[in-house]
Structures are given as C-alpha cells and as structure tokens.
C-alpha cells in the first residue's frame, strides 16, 4: 500500500464512504464485526473493497493470553482475509480471553521473557495460518505494572524481529499511556525502529471523571498534542499508512475526512521531502 491516510469505517457512513473521491483513501474495519456467515454487513464490505483498499483490525485474538490463539478464531480471520484480500491485517499486544470468558477490552501483561516467547509464538501461528505478515499494535496504559523486564519499545522491536510481524504504532495510545504513567511520549516514539513500523493510528482521548487519567476513548477529534507527535514521528520514519480512528460520538463523514486530509497532507509533505 502506498503510504496514504485512511479512515475507520462505520456502517452509518457507507454511502459517503463509497462515493468519497479522495485519492488513496482506504478504510479499516474491526475484523470481529464481520465474522458472520453472510448478510448485509458482508455485502457492504464487499462493495467498499471494490474501489478501496481495506485493512482488517482484529481485537479478539488474545495474542498475549496464556494459551495458543483459538483455532476457530484464526479460521474466522482467515476466511475474511481470503475473501476480502485486505492490504493490512493487524492485532494487539494484549489479552482478552481467559478460562472460557471473553473480555471486550485489550488487557495488559507484564513484559517478561516468558510473555515475549508466548506472544512471538502466537503471532507466528496466526501468520502461518494466514500466510502473511500481521501488524501488532502497542496498547494503551492506565496501570503501572510491576515485573516488566523489557521497556515497551524494546519489547515491541524484539517481538517484530523474532516473529517477523510489523508494528502498528498508535500515537494516541502512546500519548495516553505517557500521561497516565508519567513517561515521555516523544522519547518513546523515537525509540521504535522505523523499519518495523507498517501503520500508524491516530485517535482522540478524554480525561476521566476524576481528572487524573486520560482515557483512550476514540470519541473526540485527534488532539493537537497527538498531531504534533505524529508529525515528529513521520519526519523521522518517512510516510506510513495512517488511520483516523473514531468509534464514539460519531461525527459526519466530512468531519472525519477533514482529519484524514490533515494526515494525508503530512504524509505527502514527507514524500516530497523524501523524493
């Protein structure tokens, strides 16, 4: 995929998304929302992909779980990948399944050698089944876990080196986690090897009711701080496919496209500099 900016696709925006003339525009969907046997949802995605590249973003593989990923879930993802031929397929460095229960969240793990080995093997299983590389997204942080033996950026880089996966860097997650744990977001981004980065996510956040924690809420426009971190990141790495994510307080499609245009202009600027 030529590095261009995309938008998280919502069914409410279907007609406008289909008609949008923007060059290079692509769409990302949550894979789990399309893991059904048939019907209007899949038909909609089928129409969308006729003219646009799509990206499948999984939230339920539980790669950092204590067990191997569910073969049924890998099978469901493979059926989508085979049918829709997405340009990108991504998942998270997180867990969401335990003892037969599913948590609709991306839960944290201590970055130990054992977790590194487990995640790396799990990513390998998924990549082998799909016959392609996947990207792994850095999680948001709210809680300072003890027992980390790796920094997050060195852990992600080692995960990519061992498993052959690429990294999806969510700049908003970095900003939110840096605020909540008292880290330096720009230094964090500087420490990620550029070659491993295959996609970037931009989203909005909100302050919690007590006014202390930032929440990765995806229900506001991308903040100026995140835009500035993003521009700093691509100035170093060169242009990378970039997604505007919005899940709550869904604005009109045109408003998301304005954010997308801003990202696209940054990417094109970087391409002009690189040329």
């Amino acid at each position, binding site marked *: 995929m030529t590095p261009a900016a995309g938008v998280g696709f919502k069914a409410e925006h279907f007609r406008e998304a289909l008609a949008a003339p923007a060059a290079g525009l692509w769409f990302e969907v949550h894979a789990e929302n399309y*893991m059904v*046997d048939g019907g209007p949802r899949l038909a909609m995605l089928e129409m969308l992909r006729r003219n646009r590249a799509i990206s499948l973003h999984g939230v339920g593989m539980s790669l950092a779980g204590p067990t191997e990923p569910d073969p049924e879930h890998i099978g469901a993802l493979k059926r989508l990948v085979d049918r829709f031929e997405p340009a990108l397929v991504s998942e998270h460095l997180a867990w969401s399944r335990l003892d037969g*229960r599913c948590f609709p969240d991306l839960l944290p793990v201590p970055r130990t050698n054992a977790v590194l080995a487990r995640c790396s093997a799990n990513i390998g299983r998924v990549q082998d089944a799909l016959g392609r590389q996947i990207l792994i997204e850095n999680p948001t942080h709210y809680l300072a876990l003890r027992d980390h033996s790796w920094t997050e950026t060195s852990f992600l880089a080692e995960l990519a080196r061992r498993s052959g996966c690429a990294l999806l860097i969510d700049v908003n997650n970095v900003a939110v986690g840096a605020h909540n744990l008292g880290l330096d977001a720009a230094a964090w981004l500087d420490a990620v090897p550029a070659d491993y980065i295959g996609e970037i996510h931009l989203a909005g956040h909100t302050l919690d009711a007590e006014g202390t924690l930032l929440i990765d809420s995806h229900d506001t426009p991308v903040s100026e701080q995140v835009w500035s971190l993003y521009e700093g990141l691509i100035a170093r790495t060169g242009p990378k496919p970039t997604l505007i994510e919005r899940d709550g307080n869904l604005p009109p499609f045109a408003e998301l496209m304005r954010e997308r245009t801003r990202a696209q202009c940054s990417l094109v600027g970087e391409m002009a500099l690189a040329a």
Partner: protein
Amino acid sequence: MQPDILTFQRDFAAALDQPASGPMAVYRNTVLHGAVEALRANFCVVEKIVGTEMFEKVAVDFAAECPPRRPILVLYGERFADWLEDQPWIEDVPYLPDVARVERLWIESLMAADAEPLSARDGLGRKLLDLELVLHPAVRFGWLSTPAMSIWLAHQRPISSELKVDWKAEGALFARPSHDILHAPRIGPAAHRLLFGLRLGESVRASMNAAERLYPEEDCEALFASLLNLGAFAAPTSERNN
C-alpha cells in the same frame, strides 16, 4: 520471582469483577461497556420499551452473570431472553422476554449465510409436495405466547403511534432471500406448524396434511405458496437433484 502469565491474568480477571477506582475502573468500565453496547445493538426494541437508563442497568447485570464467551460480539446475547424471564421485575413487562426472542431471531437472520432461495419458477410444480425441502439458511421463526412480533413490528415504523395489539399468542418469521431483502411477517399457527415440520425433515405433503388436520379452517396450500414466495426455502443444490 516473576508471576507466570496465567496467575497474573487470573488475578487481573478477578480484580475486573470487583468495583474499583482509578486505573482498574477504566478496565472494568471498558469491559462492561463493550458488552452493554453489543446488547444495545442487538436488542434495540427492548431498550426502547424499558428506556435507556433501565436498559443499561439490566445489560450490566446480564453481562456480569453471562459474560461474553466469544470475541464476536455481534452475536452476543443468545441467553438474554431466557435470562430476562428469570428477573424478579419481569412481571411488570411480561412480554419483554418474547420481544427479546424476536430480536434474536432478527439478528440471527441478518447474520446468517446467504443462499439462493427456492423459487416457484424452479418448475418443480406438484413434485414439490414429495420433497423434503431445506429451509433457507437465513430463515428464523418462533412461536410466542405474547403478541411480541406485533410489538416488534410496531417499533420498526418510522413514526411512533399508539400501540394497539390483539393480546394473544402469535408466530414470527424472518426470511432473508438476499442480502438486502428481509421479510418479517407475523405468522399464524398453521404456517408455524408447516415450517416446524419442514425443519424437522417432513415432506411438504406430510407437514401440509398435519397442518390441515390441526387447523382445518386454514388454506395450507396458500400458506405454503406464500412461504415459498417469501424465500423461506433453499434452492435445491445439484447434489440433491441427483
């Protein structure tokens, strides 16, 4: 000594089930929010009936007792109707579990596999009577002891008006012969008996005879023809023709 992943995750999961403040509250709220929003999407008429505030409380209680077992939340809530039946407050809204059952049929029909429906044009004529027809994969139907399908249908109208329903048992049918056509009629006991028999593998003739004996006032041949026109049956595959 580092804890193993499993111990860490079991402790974390146990903490998610307890009321919390600070960071753990963020995780707990996200987990509950995910389940509540999935239920809201799948049971929108139940939400309209009880109101947003009550629905959220009910959904949180359900999510705590019956948390998601699969990561595919578009199909979450399989047990919601039966669970509603057991709630102490349900006697104030006795038809609510049936409305939830209708919504479940609707969601299952929407997400089911696509297939060519059998058409009267397939030229099977009287031969149809001796076939064991296969229901179309997106057909869902049920019999409800309350007029829950009438209530569901009234909530699909764009302009809400006062609801006048005949307070008696009725059937619900969802047929989706293509990805963009959904038929959702109320059905009577004879049509329900026909569908039920056909699903069990009776021939068309056997289920029609049974329905005629049980409901002599009904024109079962006409009922069968209307089910056929709704796309309730799957087109025979070449394998079945051989």
